């Protein structure tokens, strides 16, 4: 269990971490394998940031072991393989973007050129401007540039797209995808489940200080039997909600949306009772529903 795991970039083994009387992590095993994008999900206060902080050497576990590239995260050598974008990183307002980039590049042995960083993060036109004068979205792009400038083998992204508009978020997603394609592993925490759904190779869900689910997006979604049926029908919602298989129903204009664990039975019944039913759709629960169900089970 303590093997260096040739494919692992970063590992937590049976880690416990307490803050005062609060147990943030209560026996967590986690590994980030090289070249994969692992999304770490969980409700607020589930211990995501604590887990990331341990892997970066920002704090030490009370019990268990933390390994970054097989070494202690306190060693500079291990951290030189890492790029970081933290949720709240207020960089100095009075420094220019180019200066921040030069400074961060100097920590790494083989950094990308400033021009490459700027091109990848889309900040080419910002290098001469002071950080404090940038918009929120521009600041996030600068933080992303700092995260990738050291050619990391493992990138830590803590809520990277908070405060970005749709376009900027898509651009950042594209950058993440191309980084992963080039072999960089990513540990991503996010509140946007569609982000995890669209990017992650693997998802780990933290709840109450433990890993309560770990698998591919498909595996996690499959843990939830729920499906969603949409259709246009003249049937009264009250009638349908009386059917034993129906968990919930809501009406939007002439559209019905039904949540059920056995879609086949409900669809058969619907088609039988309303011969003119139209626009039928059946959809498996998304990661969001799965996530809610998994975290509620664990609670």
């Amino acid at each position: 269990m303590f093997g260096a795991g040739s494919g692992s970039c970063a590992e937590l083994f049976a880690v416990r971490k307490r803050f005062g009387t609060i147990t943030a992590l209560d026996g967590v095993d986690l590994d980030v394998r090289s070249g994969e994008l692992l999304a770490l999900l969980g409700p607020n206060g589930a211990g995501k940031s604590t887990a990331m902080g341990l892997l970066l050497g920002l704090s030490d576990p009370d019990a268990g072991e933390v390994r970054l590239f097989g070494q202690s995260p306190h060693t500079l050598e291990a951290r030189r393989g890492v790029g970081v974008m933290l949720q709240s990183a207020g960089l100095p307002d009075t420094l220019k973007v180019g200066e921040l980039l030069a400074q961060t590049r100097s920590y790494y042995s083989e950094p990308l050129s400033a021009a490459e960083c700027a091109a990848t993060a889309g900040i080419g036109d910002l290098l001469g401007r002071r950080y404090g004068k940038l918009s929120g979205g521009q600041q996030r792009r600068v933080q992303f540039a700092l995260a990738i400038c050291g050619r990391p083998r493992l990138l830590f992204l803590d809520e990277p797209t908070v405060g970005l508009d749709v376009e900027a978020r898509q651009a950042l997603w594209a950058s993440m995808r191309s980084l992963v394609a080039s072999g960089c592993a990513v540990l991503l925490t996010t509140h946007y489940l569609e982000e995890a759904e669209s990017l992650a190779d693997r998802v780990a869900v933290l709840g109450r200080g433990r890993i309560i689910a770990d698998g591919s997006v498909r595996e996690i979604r499959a843990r939830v039997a729920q499906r969603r049926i949409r259709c246009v029908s003249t049937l009264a919602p009250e009638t349908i909600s009386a059917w034993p298989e129906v968990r919930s129903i809501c009406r939007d204009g002439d559209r019905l949306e039904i949540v059920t664990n056995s879609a086949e039975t409900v669809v058969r019944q619907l088609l039988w009772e309303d011969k003119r039913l139209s626009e039928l759709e059946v959809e498996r629960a998304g990661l969001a529903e799965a996530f809610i169900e998994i975290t509620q089970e664990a609670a």
Partner: protein
Amino acid sequence: MNAIVQALPRVSLPRIYTLEGKHEFLRLLRAPSFAVPTLLFPPMFYLLFAVLFAGRSGDFHANIYLLATYGVFGVMAPGLFGFGVSVALDRERGWLTLKRALPMPPGAYLASKLAMAMLFAAVIFTILAIIAITLGGVRLPASAWPQLLVVDVFGVLPFCAIGLFVGTLVSGQAAPAVINLIYLPMSFLSGLWMPLTVLPGVVREIAPWWPAFHLGQLALGAVGEPTTGSALGHVAILAAMTVVFLFFARRRLQRSA
């Protein structure tokens, strides 16, 4: 066949330290709330009280006395504010956390701030010296100037330690107020604005509690004004205060981690 050569770490420590220091300096220079009072107040006070309204009372040389003590008053600021406010802000805004997560050599953060404070001290010394010579009519033996420079530049160290400690205690918003509450009364009570001899006896008695008093005595000694106590004693007390505050600051920084 690819010969995979273990890439040697080509991180250049001098380059890291140079950039950190340079950026720390630029950062403060571009912050008007820091740079303007720090660089302007000591020469402004000197002009007012040593040049324009200098009292002509017997053997008290306001131009020489205040060159020494406003120099001390001046170099306290980059130590107290440069460390106190910026550490409090860096801590609060997460910049310190990010730096600790990045592969930055652990000493670079404090070393760069220290270099910045010493550089500011040297600048303040230079401005005051130029005004003292040109407008204040100060003539000192050649050996006095480098002595005063050394006192000013190394004299920032205890104030850096105090600033660092305060920066680990209070929020970025509260830091300027808290530091002003330390800075201004301590300057007055240490005889930096007017000689202790004209202040009430109780002020003279408690003066040895303040680091600014000891640095003031060293600076006065450098320019040949009368002092109390031995230079070695003042240095020892300042060094001890530096160590004590560094110790507590370090403990606070580790706890908040």
